[in-house]
C-alpha cells in the first residue's frame, strides 16, 4: 500500500496504482482531465499530455520533487508522494499549452460537429484553454476517407489519442483500422479503405473524445442537447445490451453505450444494438439517464423542478369546502 497526497487530500492505494487512478479514487475535483487515457483499454494513455501533474515530493524515502511535470496516467504512485494538480500554477500553465497544441490543427467546426455538447476537447478547452490562437499556419487538411456505412471519419478533428486503435486491437478481432504515416502526418485510417465490419467496431465512436469518429446514422439528425437520454436494455447474444437511447420526441435517434462519470463507456456494445435497433419496442426502458445539471444536455429539461415548500403550503393552500363557504 502507498499513501499519496493529491492537492492536499490523502488516500491509501495499492502499489502499482497510477497517480491518475488514485486521483479518480479521491474524486472528480482533483482528477486530472484525460483525452487519451481510457481505463477500459489496456496500454492507453501517454499521448495527449493533458493529465500532466506536478510531483512536489517524490516519496517518503526520496523526498526530492520530480524535475518535470509527469503524465499522471503513466506514473505510478510511491509511498508518501505529494502531487499538485489543480493547486499547482505550473500545471495550469502547462495544460493551457497542451490545449493550445491540441487545437493547433483542430478545425473548430463545433457548430457542424455532431459531437458538440458531449465533446471532451470542448470541455477541456473551455476549462483550461485560452480563447485565442497564436498560430499563423494553415490548419492541416486531409482527403476524405469513407470508412463504411455506419461510421463517419473526420480526420481533421482527430487529436491522435489512439483510443480507437486500441479498441480495434483489443475489442474487435482482426484489426482493420490503425494509424498510418508518422508525426505530424499521422492519420487514422482503415487499410486500403476497407469497411470496418466487425461486430464491435461501433465502439470507436464512443471512445473517440472528439468528433473524429461519429455515428453516420445520427449524422446531422439533431444536436445532442435536443435529445433526451434514457437507460434501456435488451437481450443481446453478443453484448450486455445495456445502452443509452437518445430520444427526440418519440423517435430513437441514436444508441450509445452507457458512460460513467469520467465519460468512459461502462460496457462496450455491439453494432446490432448500436445501429440496427432504433425502435422503442426493441428495448426495455429503465428510466431517464441522470445528466449533470451543468451539462448542456440537461438544458431546457425540467424534470427535476422542485416547487418551493413555502409557496406550496402557505401561499396557495387550497381551502376546504367549509372554509370556502365561511370566507
Amino acid at each position, binding site marked *: 500500500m502507498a499513501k499519496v497526497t493529491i492537492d492536499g487530500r490523502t488516500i491509501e492505494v495499492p502499489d502499482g496504482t497510477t497517480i491518475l487512478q488514485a486521483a479518480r479514487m479521491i474524486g472528480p475535483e482533483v482528477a486530472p482531465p484525460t483525452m487519451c487515457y481510457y481505463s477500459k483499454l489496456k496500454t492507453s494513455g501517454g499521448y495527449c499530455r493533458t493529465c500532466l501533474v506536478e510531483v512536489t515530493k517524490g516519496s517518503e524515502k526520496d523526498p526530492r520533487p520530480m524535475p518535470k511535470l509527469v503524465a499522471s496516467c503513466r506514473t505510478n504512485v510511491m509511498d508518501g508522494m505529494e502531487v499538485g494538480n489543480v493547486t499547482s500554477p505550473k500545471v495550469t500553465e502547462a495544460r493551457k499549452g497542451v490545449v493550445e497544441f491540441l487545437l493547433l490543427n483542430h478545425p473548430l467546426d463545433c*457548430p*457542424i460537429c455532431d459531437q458538440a455538447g458531449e465533446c471532451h476537447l470542448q470541455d477541456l478547452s473551455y476549462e483550461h484553454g485560452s480563447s485565442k490562437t497564436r498560430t499563423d499556419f494553415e490548419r492541416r487538411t486531409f482527403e476524405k476517407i469513407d470508412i463504411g456505412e455506419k461510421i463517419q471519419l473526420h480526420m481533421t478533428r482527430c487529436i491522435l489519442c489512439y483510443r480507437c486503435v486500441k479498441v480495434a486491437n483489443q475489442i474487435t478481432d482482426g484489426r482493420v483500422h490503425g494509424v498510418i504515416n508518422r508525426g505530424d502526418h499521422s492519420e487514422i485510417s482503415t487499410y486500403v479503405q476497407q469497411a470496418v465490419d466487425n461486430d464491435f467496431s461501433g465502439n470507436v465512436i464512443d471512445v473517440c473524445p472528439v468528433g473524429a469518429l461519429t455515428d453516420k446514422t445520427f*449524422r446531422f439528425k439533431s*444536436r445532442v*442537447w435536443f435529445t433526451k437520454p434514457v437507460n434501456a436494455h435488451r437481450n443481446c447474444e453478443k453484448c450486455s445490451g445495456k445502452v443509452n437511447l437518445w430520444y427526440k420526441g418519440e423517435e430513437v435517434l441514436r444508441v450509445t453505450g452507457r458512460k460513467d462519470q469520467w465519460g468512459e463507456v461502462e460496457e462496450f456494445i455491439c453494432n446490432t444494438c448500436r445501429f440496427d435497433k432504433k425502435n422503442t419496442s426493441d428495448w426495455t426502458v429503465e428510466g431517464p439517464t441522470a445528466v449533470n445539471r451543468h451539462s448542456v444536455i440537461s438544458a431546457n429539461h425540467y424534470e427535476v423542478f422542485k416547487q418551493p415548500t413555502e409557496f406550496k403550503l402557505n401561499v396557495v393552500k387550497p381551502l376546504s369546502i367549509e372554509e370556502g363557504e365561511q370566507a
Partner: protein
Amino acid sequence: MQLTNRSKVVTQPEMTWVEKLYLPAIFSGLQITIKHLFRKKATLKYPEVQKAFAPVYRGMHVLKRDEQGRENCTACGLCAVSCPAEAITMDAAERKKGEEHLYREEKYAAKYEINMLRCIYCGLCEEACPKDAIYLTDRIVPSEYTRGEFVFGKDMLVEKIEERVDISKRQKNYTI
C-alpha cells in the same frame, strides 16, 4: 365601516358670486387649450412620418447570407438552446454536391422556424450565434390574422439575395 383612517370628509361649500358666473373658469380652461395649440406636437402622423429607431432596436429577425449569397446558418442549435422563450426550432440537413453556392458550410438548416408570438425579442439568439447568421433588425413584424401565420419559416427569415438587410448598425454596437 371604516377601513382606514385616511378617509377625509368632503364638503361642498356654496359658490361665491364670481364662481357662479363660470366665465373665469371657462377662460382659464381656454387659455390652457390655446397654449397647447402652439406647442410641439407629441404625436407623429404615423405612416407618412416615422420615428427613427434606436440603433439597438430589436425587431424582426433576419437570417443572413455571406457576400457570395450563401446562407450563413449551419443549424448548430445554439440560438434554440439559448432562447428563453423556446421559440426557435430547426432541422439540419447535409449539403449535397452542387449546392456549394447555396450554403456556406457542410451542414445547413433545412427547416428553421421562429414562433413570433413566443419570441420576446431579447436578442440572445443573436448573441449566441457563432456564424453571424441571425440578427434582429429594425423591421417590424407584420401583423397576421391567425396564430399559425406567426410561425415564420425560412421564406420569411432568410434575406433575399437582391434585397439585403443592413445590420451594420447592430454590429457596431457590439460590446464584449
